[in-house]
Structure formats: C-alpha cells, structure tokens
C-alpha cells in the first residue's frame, strides 16, 4: 500500500536538510569565485576554507592536505595514476585487492596496459585481505598499495591499521578508498598511517558530485587537472562551492553522530540478517559476520536470480541492489562475490540491502515479511529449485 523502503544507501544517500540548508546561500547569495580578489570572492574563499577545515578535522588531517574533487571515482583515479606516474623512477609495481571498486580496479587495469605491474591480492571467504600475503607481494619495485577501507558490496572492513603500518615500514605509499567507510568507521589518517584517502559526500548524506582526496604532506603525486591554481595547483577548475560546503557540513555531522548512527544501524542490520537467514532456506550472508559496515547486509538466495528479485522488491516499494550479471550490464556476476569464492550461479542470486539514518524498525519488519514471500515465488518458477532442493548442503 504505497510503502516505500529505501535500503540502497551504499549506492547513495539523500542529502540531509541541515546540509542542504547550509549549501543554498552558495548558489544565489554567496556566489563569488573563491579565486577572485573582491569581497564576493573573499566571502566564497572563507566558506571554502571552512569546509576544508571541517573535512580535515573529521580525518585528523591538516586542511592543506585536503583536496576537493568531483567525487570518489575521481579521487581514486587521481591517487593511483598520480602517484604511479610521479614515482615511476622508483618502480612500477602496485599492490591492490581483488575486491576493489571499479574506480580503483579499472584504473589499475589501465596502468597495466601502460607499463605497470599490478598484484591483486586475494581475499578470504569473508572478503578479508590476508596481511601475510600483502607482505609477500611487496618487492623493491613496489610504489603503491591501494586497499579499500570497507567494501561497497559486502561491507567487510579491512585491517587498515596493519596495512598502514606495513606500508610505512617499507616506505611504500598507502592509498585507501574510504568512500563507504567515512561516516561509518572512525578514521584517523595519522594513527592509521594513511598517505591518501578517497571520500565522496553523497555516501554520508551530502550532495552528489563532490568528494575529496586526502594527500599527506610530502607525498609525491602529479596534479590531476591542469589549468588553474585551485587546490594548491593540483586540481584546476573553479570550485563546486555549494557542493564543497555541503561536504564540509555532512562530514562534520557524520562524525558527530557516528556512535548513535552505528549503534542504531548495527542493531537493525543484525535483526534483518538473523530473521532473513532463519526464514529463508538455502540463503547465506556474504561478508564478515562482525567486521562489516553497520548498515550492510548482503545475502545470496540459491536457485533465483538477483534482478528478478530486485524487480519484485521494487514492486513492493523496497529498493535494494544486486551483484547479478543482469544488473551489472555484463555477463559475469560481481567480481567481489566471485573473489569470496561464490560459484557463479549463487553470485547471480545476491541481494544487497544497505541501511541508513532514515530506516526504522518498521522498515525491517516490512522487509522481513515481504522478502521471504518473493524468494518463495521466484523459486516456484525456477527449474533449479525443484531439481536441487534437499539434495545437498548449501555452500
């Protein structure tokens, strides 16, 4: 009856009203170019500086180490290409993982075509990188380690502190794609020995089209966009001031609210996982049982396909996502689900539900009620269910 439940917060979040409120004057009243000398420009410059301070504070960085970009994908591209090309004299080897976001993965593939060598570290069944394998992969030609803070599909949180320590000991740059982690996991770039960190405002209730790259002072990296002195000569182009103001407000709010946000989401998530696994046979949780993002639940339902599941949920007003091939536009299901060892046919039947601040216990009740019915209906249509049911143990 018109019930709407949004559980795709890992794809994007809404912009919080208090964030939007701070942004609005920067479209109409305080519209100056921060590079201009006049009062309009100076006023805009102050807002830009303030947003940079807020962002730096959220990460325990210096404001001069924060560079605003157009989002997480740009930040990842810049961090990896920028350090790879700037440090070519030292080596051509990059270490990353098999479960990175495509912004990292495809950038590494691009560099491979251009003379770099890339090691893609495997992960265990929970999606966790083995630190020992990382150590073994390091050579005297290694110039960069890029490991995501938390995975966007299955929510697994990586041992970032250990990886940071190893990278620092071996004097190798360490970049982390923290797009999913910011606002969900406390981040201290000093303590964690992070050299570069990517973030994106629309994942923590800020606006779309704006992100940042933290670049530790002293890191040798090429400028990303040429053509102006903005962002300390490293990222030219007139700043997206309303967006940047929104990012600053959103990250400050996210850090302030983190404890409450995490407690609420974790409790709802755990109930959702517990109930779905007990109500639906031949189902499993993907990702780590505890070391996972507070809002992330990722299931596989055997004998059915993810897109049919998403369409059915959508008809009931529930928004989720899937790692099936049909939703990715390619023939293969999610590389993350394959990397944790799922067979193709089970990866096709995956469902990601990611909770956010607007979700309620009633939303969880509704999903718990509706989802098992949908799975049953699709299984009744599936030739695999009748053939395999009861015949073997689930993976």
């Amino acid at each position, binding site marked *: 009856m018109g019930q709407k439940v949004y559980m795709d917060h890992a794809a994007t979040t809404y912009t919080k009203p208090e964030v939007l409120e701070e942004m609005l004057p920067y479209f109409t009243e305080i519209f100056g170019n921060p590079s201009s000398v006049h009062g309009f420009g100076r006023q805009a410059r102050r807002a830009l500086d303030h947003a940079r301070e807020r962002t730096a504070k959220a990460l325990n960085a210096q404001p001069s180490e924060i560079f605003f970009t157009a989002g997480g994908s740009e930040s990842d591209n810049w961090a990896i290409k920028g350090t790879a090309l700037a440090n070519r004299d030292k080596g051509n080897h990059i270490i990353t993982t098999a479960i990175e976001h495509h912004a990292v993965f495809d950038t590494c593939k691009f560099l491979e075509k251009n003379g770099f060598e890339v090691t893609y570290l495997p992960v265990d069944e929970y999606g966790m990188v083995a630190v020992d394998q990382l150590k073994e992969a390091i050579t005297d030609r290694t110039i960069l380690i890029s490991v995501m803070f938390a995975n966007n599909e299955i929510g697994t949180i990586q041992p970032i502190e250990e990886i940071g320590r190893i990278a620092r000991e071996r004097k190798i740059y360490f970049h982390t794609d923290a797009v999913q982690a910011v606002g969900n996991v406390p981040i201290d770039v000093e303590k964690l020995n992070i050299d570069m960190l990517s973030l994106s405002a629309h994942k923590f209730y800020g606006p779309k089209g704006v992100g940042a790259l933290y670049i530790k002072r002293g890191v040798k990296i090429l400028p990303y966009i040429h053509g102006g002195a903005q962002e300390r000569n490293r990222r030219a182009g007139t700043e997206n001031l309303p967006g940047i103001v929104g990012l600053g407000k959103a990250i400050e709010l996210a850090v302030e609210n983190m404890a409450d946000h995490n407690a609420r989401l974790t409790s709802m998530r755990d109930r959702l996982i517990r109930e779905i696994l007990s109500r639906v046979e031949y189902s499993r949780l993907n990702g780590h049982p505890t070391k996972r993002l507070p809002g992330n639940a990722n299931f596989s339902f055997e004998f059915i396909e993810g897109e049919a599941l998403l369409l059915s949920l959508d008809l009931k007003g529930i928004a989720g996502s899937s790692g099936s091939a049909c939703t990715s536009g390619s023939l293969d299901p999610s590389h993350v689900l394959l990397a944790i060892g799922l067979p193709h046919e089970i990866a096709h039947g995956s469902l990601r539900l990611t909770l956010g601040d607007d979700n309620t216990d009633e939303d969880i009740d509704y999903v718990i009620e509706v989802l098992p019915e949908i799975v049953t209906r699709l299984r009744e249509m599936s*030739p695999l269910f009748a053939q395999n049911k009861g015949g073997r143990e689930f993976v």
Partner: protein
Amino acid sequence: MYSEQVMDHFINPRNVGEIENADGVGQVGNAKCGDIMKVYLKIENDIIVDAKFKTFGCGAAIATSSMSTELIKGKSIHEALKLTNKAVAEALGGLPPVKMHCSVLAEDAVKAAIEDYLKKQGRAE
C-alpha cells in the same frame, strides 16, 4: 527500463509450471550465466495443446518464457518452429538491447522442446 508488457508478464507470468508426462521437454541456458529456461509441451496430432515453463533468470527471462509459451499454445508444431526471438520481443513491446539474448533463449527453449517431441516420435530431422 522494461515495457509495460514485460512487467505484466513478469508480475503475472502465464503458464508457469510443469506438465507431467509431457510430450516434449526442452531446457536451454546454464546457471553459470544466470539463465535457465525449461519448456514442457503437451502435443496432440502435432498441435500444441498446452505449454508450461520454469525459468531461473532475470525479469526479461521470465517475461519471454511467459510470452513464448503463450504464442505457441494452440499452434501446430510447424508453426511453432517458425517462432523467432524477434516475434517474442515484439509481442512484449520490445526489450532493452542487453536483454535480447533472453528472447533468443526463449525461442531456443521452444525449439528444443519440439525437437524432443519429434525425437521421441522417431521423427527427428
């Protein structure tokens, strides 16, 4: 992304199920690729008197299975063998380009079921 007809056949698929002692059964696709269609036919005097299907796959896979079984019911096997994937897609008001392979699978499943019937009759071509 889907037409109204596709959504209609996805929400209310026609002919879901199995036919016991079917005269022809055809299964195409594989689970690895995320699509399996299985078509069951009841055939009397070379006329398809009933058709049912079971499908593991996306929305388009379910809708094309539903539509293709609708299109061949009451037809002679010779007419049904002329069913094309294009006709299935057209009857559904079109499919997104990345989903056209679902209509190919539907055509193949129908043909596999008819061939199975012909083989059982000792008339395989």
